[in-house]
């Protein structure tokens, strides 16, 4: 009933301090990195907006070892409790607006007008919802085209909705929306790639239909969505599906705008990291959904955060 996220022991942040390690991002990668760096004795700070990162967009987690079918909010609470009980300093409710490196020191500018300085930095600012990039999408965003099922589901009670996508996030959104909407139609460009157990659960729901190998080519509507145009590649046929809502659940694009002139990115805008989570800039590490690691999983992001912190510790120790 309540998703309480505020912290009772807000640390006093010393903005004049030179930190050893600053983790940017409050998702699994940033939090775990902060924990590991702090335990190594590094002067550590975790910085970001809301604890949880992209876990906040998820209802339940089924595949984090040790927690079977845990509500995402509960897992976030466990993460935050662990960080707070370990007394890892954390600065929340801020956005990073700039990162630069000068004389071996990283200078991080925040939207509260303050700056932070650190010898090493982990960049783990996650991703934003990926768009379909088809005609009509931008015009009808917020007018029936949505990107967050847990947020916007209540507006589609007893309506016919479509979900674009076939990965775990699309199937999770289907489970949520099938409880509210009259019908849910899944349109997947290739084949459904979500975990088999989840797909089997969804396939049993009476109000869910799935179409694979089908492209969404246009979103139709004047002031509000009225339907989508699709191309069924198996039948080699175009058709229009009427709908009152379209949820786009096709993954995320990395939030790497702050790094574009600082480190090497690949053609998808992802930070290129090696197996030590090092970027092309010494002392700057990256983990989680901003990187070229194609596996977008909570446990992988957390593990990569830990690796980055341990490598940062080696880097500082050797200097």
């Amino acid at each position, binding site marked *: 009933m309540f998703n309480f996220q505020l912290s009772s022991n807000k640390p006093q942040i010393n903005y004049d301090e030179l930190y050893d390690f600053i983790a940017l991002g409050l998702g699994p990668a940033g939090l775990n990195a902060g924990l590991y760096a702090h335990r190594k004795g590094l002067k550590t700070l975790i910085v970001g907006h809301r604890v949880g990162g992209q876990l906040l967009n998820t209802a339940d987690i089924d595949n984090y070892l040790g927690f079977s079918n845990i509500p995402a909010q509960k897992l976030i609470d466990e993460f935050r409790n662990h960080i707070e009980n370990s007394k890892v300093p954390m600065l929340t409710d801020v956005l990073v607006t700039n990162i630069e490196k000068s004389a071996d020191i990283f200078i991080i500018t925040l939207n509260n007008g303050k700056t932070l300085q650190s010898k090493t930095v982990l960049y783990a600012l996650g991703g934003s919802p990926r768009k379909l990039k088809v005609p009509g999408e931008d015009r009808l965003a917020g007018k029936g085209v949505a990107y967050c099922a847990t947020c916007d589901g209540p*507006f589609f009670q007893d309506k016919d909705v479509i979900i674009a996508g076939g990965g775990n996030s699309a199937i999770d959104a289907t489970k949520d929306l099938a409880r509210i909407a009259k019908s849910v139609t899944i349109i997947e460009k290739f084949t459904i790639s979500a975990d088999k157990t989840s797909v089997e659960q969804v396939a049993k729901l009476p109000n869910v239909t799935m179409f694979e190998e089908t492209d969404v080519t246009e979103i139709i509507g004047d002031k509000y969505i009225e339907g989508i145009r699709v191309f069924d590649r198996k039948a080699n046929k175009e058709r229009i599906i009427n709908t009152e809502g379209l949820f786009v659940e096709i993954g995320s694009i990395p939030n790497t705008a702050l790094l574009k002139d600082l480190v090497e990115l690949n053609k998808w805008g992802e930070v290129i990291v090696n197996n030590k989570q090092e970027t092309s800039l010494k002392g700057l590490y990256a983990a989680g959904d901003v990187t070229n690691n194609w596996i977008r999983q909570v446990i992988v992001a957390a593990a990569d955060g830990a690796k980055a912190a341990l490598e940062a510790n080696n880097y500082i120790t050797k200097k």
Partner: protein
Amino acid sequence: MGKLFNEEVASQIKGVLAQMKNEITIKLFIDGKCDTCLETKQLLEETKTLSDKINLVVHEINESKEEAEKYDITLTPTFIILDDKGTYSGVRFSGFPGGYEINSFVSSLLEMSGLRHEFPQEVVDRVAKIKEPIDIKVFVTLGCPHCPGAVETAHRLAMLNSNIKATMIESQTFMELARTHKVSSVPKIVFNDALDLLGNQPVEAFLDEIETLL
């Protein structure tokens, strides 16, 4: 009805409210026994027990017409938060602040008690130049993790400038109003019932919209 806050949540909120600096007063306007009115009343009563700096006044809207008119209350349940001097700065919640919205609710109590959010000077300067009435409605749902951030920004602007009024509107309780404003994604931020923004936008984006209305 059982307690809304379980022991764990009550303890977390109590810990956060321990940071309150000065007393505040919550004025709640309800209408008879509507479900969300009673639920909101209970939430505020339980919150009051977690800090001795919280005062709560409950008004039946039909019996407190003058008071409702003074604060421009038309929806129930709506509550406003006043500072220790009884000053109203336009911080309002319409509907039940449960789910993720418990965060914007508790933040507003802390900040109204004197633990104000620090904006950069250039933002403060821009807010100070707003001389005309600005009404900000932030439509939310309780399952939306991005919504409290937008509500907090709107409330912070209201606390900075008495010309700004900012209301969290819980869409499921006020679905007709949400439909009037064509809300299908949240947070949707509506300025003077004329302009709107979608998503948890930075304060600069709020100010860009407001400045087009001046």
